[in-house]
C-alpha cells in the first residue's frame, strides 16, 4: 500500500518536471524554412569529389537563399547538411530537396554533413557586394573530403543510410 503512494508521488513529480522542461521543445525541430518573400538567391548544392559544391558559391548578405540539393549527386550522409553559422540543419529527400535561410553576416562559411564527413565552404558577400575578410574556422575532426571511410569521389553510403 505504501508503494502505491510512492509510485503516485513519483509519477506526479515526473509529470510536473517533464511538463516544465519539455514545453516548447517542438521549436527545436532542426529545420526552419524561411518563407521567401521578394528577392531569392537560388543556389544549387551537390557533392563532387567528396566535397560540397555550391553553385554559385558566392551569395549576398541579407537576401534569402534557397538551397536546392541535386539528389543524384548527394550520396550517403551528405543528404543531411548543417550550416552552423546560420543555424541551418536539414535532411534532404527526393520529395523535399530545398531549404531556405537568410545569411545575416558576411564572410566565408562552412557547410558540412551532420557527421562532419562531407565538407565545403561558401562566401557571403556584404550588402554592397564586397568580400568580407572573415573566414570561419574549419573543424579539424572528420576526414578531409572523404566520405565516412570511402575514398574521395566515390559515391555511396557510409553505413548511415546511403
Amino acid at each position, binding site marked *: *500500500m*505504501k*508503494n502505491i503512494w*510512492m*509510485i503516485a*508521488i*513519483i509519477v506526479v*513529480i*515526473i509529470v510536473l*518536471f*517533464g511538463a*516544465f*522542461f*519539455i*514545453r*516548447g*521543445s*517542438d*521549436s*527545436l525541430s*532542426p529545420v526552419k524554412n524561411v518563407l521567401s518573400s521578394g528577392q531569392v538567391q537560388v543556389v544549387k548544392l551537390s557533392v563532387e569529389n567528396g566535397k560540397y559544391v555550391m553553385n554559385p558559391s558566392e551569395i549576398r548578405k541579407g537576401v534569402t537563399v534557397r538551397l536546392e540539393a541535386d539528389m543524384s549527386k548527394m550520396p550517403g*550522409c551528405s543528404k*543531411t547538411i*548543417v550550416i*552552423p*553559422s546560420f*543555424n541551418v*540543419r*536539414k*535532411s534532404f529527400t527526393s520529395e523535399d530537396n530545398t531549404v531556405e535561410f537568410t545569411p545575416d553576416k558576411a564572410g566565408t562559411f*562552412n557547410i*558540412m554533413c*551532420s*557527421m*562532419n564527413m562531407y565538407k565545403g565552404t561558401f562566401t557571403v558577400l556584404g550588402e554592397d557586394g564586397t568580400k568580407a575578410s572573415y573566414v570561419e*574556422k*574549419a*573543424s579539424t*575532426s572528420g576526414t578531409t573530403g572523404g566520405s565516412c571511410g570511402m575514398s574521395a569521389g566515390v559515391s555511396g553510403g557510409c553505413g*548511415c543510410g546511403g
Partner: protein
Amino acid sequence: MANKSTKEPSEFREFAKELNESRRVEGELLKTFLYSLLSSIVVIGILYFTVFKSIYNFIPKYGFYIFFVVLTYSIIIPSIRQVRAYKRFACMSGMMIGMTSGMIAGFLPGFFIGATNGMFWGSVFGMSVGIILGIWNGKSCGIMGIMEGLMAGFMGGLMGAMSSVMMLNDNIRAASIVVFVISVVIMFALNYMIYKEMKSNERQLKESQFITIATSVVLTLITALFMVLGPRSAIFG
C-alpha cells in the same frame, strides 16, 4: 521443463511482493528511485534559477535532454544500492551486473550529450560515466566484473553518442524515448536478476541514502553543466 515454466512467474511475483515490503533491500528500490529523482531535480532547479535561466532558448534546446538525464540516473542508482547491500556476488552474476550497469550508464548519458554536444564529447562523457559506474557495480565479483564494467562502459558510451548523432535529423526525440524505455526495462530486469540470485542470502550492508543522494547530485550536476556549458563539436556551434 514444465516445472520451470510454473516456477518463473511465482518468483517474479515474489519479487514484486518484496518491492512492497521493507525486509530486504528490494523494498527500498522505489524509495531510492524517489530520493535520486528528488536530489537531481533540486540540483537542476538550483542550476536553472542561477545559471541556465539566462541562457537564450535554454528550455527548447536542452530541457528535453535534461529531463531524461535526471530520469536516467534515477533508474541506474537504485541498482548501486542493491549491489552494495549484498556486497559479494558469484562471477556470472557480477559480470552481468557490471555489464548492464556499464552499458546503460554509458549509453544513455552518451546519447543525450551526443545530441547536444556532438559525437566526440558525447562519447568521452558517456564512456567516463559508463566505465566508472560499470566498475563500481562490477567490482562486487572481483576483477571479472571490473573488466566487464570497463568494457561495457567503453562500448556503451561510444554507441550512445554515435547513435544520437546519426539520428539527429531523424526523430531524435522519439528515439530518445524508445531508448530510455528499453533501458528502464533492462534496469528493472537487472534488479530482478539480483533478487533472484541473492534471495537466499542475507543482506550484508544496511546504509543510509547518503550515497544515493551524493551520487545523484554529482552526476546530475556534472552532466547538466557539461551539456549546457561544456565543449561541443563544430557542427553544434
